[in-house]
């Protein structure tokens, strides 16, 4: 199966945009990935070994949190996307105006 690597993590994955791995489930696929590219591990997992909260993992178009998480079975033609979250906004605190809430 193919794992798509987001732009910021490619520097830890041999500058590759996607990597092929052999696995039976999502957890195995991610393990295979981090075994080949160990520097990726700290960007994907906490010290306790949990996927970081802002790291979304999608099997094709489905969030694995709503499937069977890392036990979700995968097939050879599936693709796994690692997608750090994208959020923010102009709250009351600001680097230049220093307003309080």
């Amino acid at each position: 199966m193919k794992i798509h690597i987001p732009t910021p993590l490619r520097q830890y994955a041999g500058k590759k945009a996607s990597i092929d791995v052999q696995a039976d489930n999502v957890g195995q696929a991610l393990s295979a990935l981090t075994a080949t590219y160990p520097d990726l591990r700290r960007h994907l997992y906490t010290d306790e070994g949990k996927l970081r909260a802002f790291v979304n993992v999608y099997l094709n178009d489905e969030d694995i949190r709503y499937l069977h998480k890392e036990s979700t079975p995968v097939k050879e033609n599936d693709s796994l996307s690692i997608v750090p979250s994208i959020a923010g906004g102009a709250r009351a605190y600001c680097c230049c105006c220093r307003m309080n809430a």
Partner: protein
Amino acid sequence: MLRIDQTCYDQLRRHGEETYPHECCGVLLGRVEDEDQRLVTSIARAGNTRTDSPQNRYNIDPRELITIQRQARERGLDIVGFYHSHPDHPARWSSTDLAEAHWLGCSYVITRVEKGQARETNSFLLLGGEEAEKRFQDEPLQAVAQIAETKTPA
């Protein structure tokens, strides 16, 4: 330096005007020429999923991002950053922007929209080797008349 195609620049500013008084958001597509030069040749609008507080928060649905990423890949483009608007708020990153930014090495473009009119547009580069040391750095932004979508062979 972030060099952005003038049409894209106009489009992302207009997006902020259209969604005012809510924040708009989207993806900057293009390529990185080298560490100091990043080119935006196309933008992709995204929906703001923060319907609970759209006037001062934004969030892009990862599923929408995957679709954008797939279409960009087919055109040979990469994600080089993201944009959003600050309705009636400065075009500077907020503590929320920094806390929620995780695409290290990417550009975050912010437009101040004052009473429905786009004003300043600034870019900030997210630096740092990992989450604990991430920080925004002001990044010069230049709108350029026309940027070729693919790199011209030497």
